[in-house]
């Protein structure tokens, strides 16, 4: 053993210096005072919509046991502002920039993807086909195999840059959706967005979220997401990015053992703004402690453990 530990992972044609990146919506410019973005595996800004959008009524978040519900409604300044400000801002950093795209229709997804992918600073695109807030009663594109297929294959036509499809966990079979996304040309799958949830205040009798329902994130959901990563890893050959409830290095490692090649960190950054950097350090320390040279040695190992028996 040379003592050098390799944290590099490959997502499509992207080589990341380490597997840790932010989850869209829980990261942005305001964090640059706290986190050196150049230490991250990649940067994923908040999802962008075609046109400016005000977002949902407040309260937009509330907490739940070991988790939180959010329904922000993708407040955004629209694509023009994104091209004028957000992309140039992130171009300063030398880690891959992966914009997250949230369209109201397949056409909007295609249009935005085409325009954003043209930007040199953009390394890949995350397609947020899973946001449970956009349409009535929590529906999303990613709930339907066919729609998922159509959306991703149309976006595939307009760019050769890596496409990451962010799936919704609010489905009967995430494996079917995952297969559909890969067939349509997704280079990687983010598993997954938030679980549709609700909390009611027992004093006011009103929902705790202005928009009634929202997405549950945080450690409460990790066991559901680990299960999905495990299932999807058995079914597809593209790299999976595990996302949901990762709070520390051990949680990231659990996700990778289940089959994730990289991880995204959301809620953890609210509790601890330097969580991402600490997770990178904890992964390193774990590898050292277990005398592993390469993070690749972890990916999907829970599967081999089972086959061996």
């Amino acid at each position: 053993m040379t003592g050098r530990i390799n944290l590099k992972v490959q997502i499509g044609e992207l080589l990341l210096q380490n597997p840790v990146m932010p989850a869209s919506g829980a990261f942005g410019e305001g964090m640059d005072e706290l986190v050196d973005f150049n230490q991250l595996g990649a940067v994923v800004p908040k999802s962008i919509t075609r046109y400016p959008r005000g977002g949902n009524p407040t309260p937009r978040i509330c907490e739940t046991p070991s988790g939180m519900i959010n329904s922000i409604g993708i407040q955004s300044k629209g694509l023009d502002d994104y091209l004028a400000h957000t992309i140039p801002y992130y171009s300063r950093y030398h880690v891959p920039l992966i914009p997250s795209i949230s369209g109201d229709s397949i056409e909007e997804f295609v249009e935005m993807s085409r325009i954003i992918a043209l930007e040199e600073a953009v390394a890949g695109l995350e397609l947020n086909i899973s946001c449970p807030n956009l349409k009535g009663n929590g529906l999303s594109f990613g709930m339907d195999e066919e729609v998922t297929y159509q959306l991703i294959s149309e976006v595939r036509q307009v760019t050769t840059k890596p496409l990451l499809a962010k799936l919704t966990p609010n489905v009967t079979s995430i494996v079917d959706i995952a297969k559909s996304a890969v067939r349509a040309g997704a280079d990687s799958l983010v598993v997954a967005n938030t679980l549709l949830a609700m909390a009611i205040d027992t004093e006011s009798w009103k929902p705790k979220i202005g928009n009634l329902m929202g997405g549950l994130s945080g450690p409460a959901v990790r066991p559901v997401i680990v299960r999905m990563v495990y299932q999807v890893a058995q079914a597809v050959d593209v790299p999976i990015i595990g996302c949901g409830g990762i709070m520390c290095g051990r949680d990231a490692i659990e996700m990778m053992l289940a089959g994730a090649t990289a991880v995204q960190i959301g809620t953890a950054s609210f509790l601890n703004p330097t969580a991402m950097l600490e997770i990178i350090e904890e992964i390193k320390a774990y590898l050292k402690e277990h005398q592993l040279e390469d993070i690749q040695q972890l990916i999907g190992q829970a599967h081999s453990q089972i086959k061996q028996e």
Partner: protein
Amino acid sequence: MRDFRLKVVFNQQVSQRYWHLCLDASSIQEDIKPGQFFNIFCSDYSTEPFLRRPFSLYHFDKMHLEFLYAIKGVGTKALTHYQKGDTLNVLGPLGQFFQLPKNTREILLLARGVGIATLAALAYEAYERGIKVVGVLSARTNDDLVIADTLQSLGMVIYKVTDENKTSDIENVMERLSFILKQRTIDAVYTCGSRRLTRLLQRVSSEYGIYGEVALEENMGCSVGVCYACVCQIKEKEDSQSVRICREGPVFPLEKVLV
């Protein structure tokens, strides 16, 4: 702004609902201003809360950060468990601070409940700069007005109104404000802690043509401007615009907020 790990100097109950927390701030280099806040992780010792909780500074100097907080729910309850010598993770200083316009000689503070803590920081700064302070402080009970006497003892003119004395209704507060504004030359007004009182002060300040500011509250996720949980509406010309309380606020020009 950083996530500091600060030692508790003391954390004591000062009335039935209020606690006073003092942290050792000797490690903080940053400039801190009244109206700014810290987002505090209060769950080292209990199962809740999950998220941090935001608290404005009530008082501070080079060596100490002081907070005055009211027990509301799980977060503030958890905060009471911290004792001298324990450490707390506090992220800050965050947000925009109160502005004292040039040549201000006297200001009016209109505060309700925990809003009193937020405005107290401004009162102390005004006091140090020789600016006179008049305060109308509103709360449920007289017991909730613990710091009123402290401010009074510094020579500030304090009016207390409470629900228990039935003096906190809008009409009565309106009367006091009119009285004060007629009697004195108030250069700026500040409010925190109540939508009703904010709307009242908006009317009064525009009527008298006085500069005003308000500090707002909203549930927070990140507290550093990335999650858009904490928005409110601000008038921009004809239109209204959604801004972040943790970043563009919590202090806003009084006439601009839509409450």
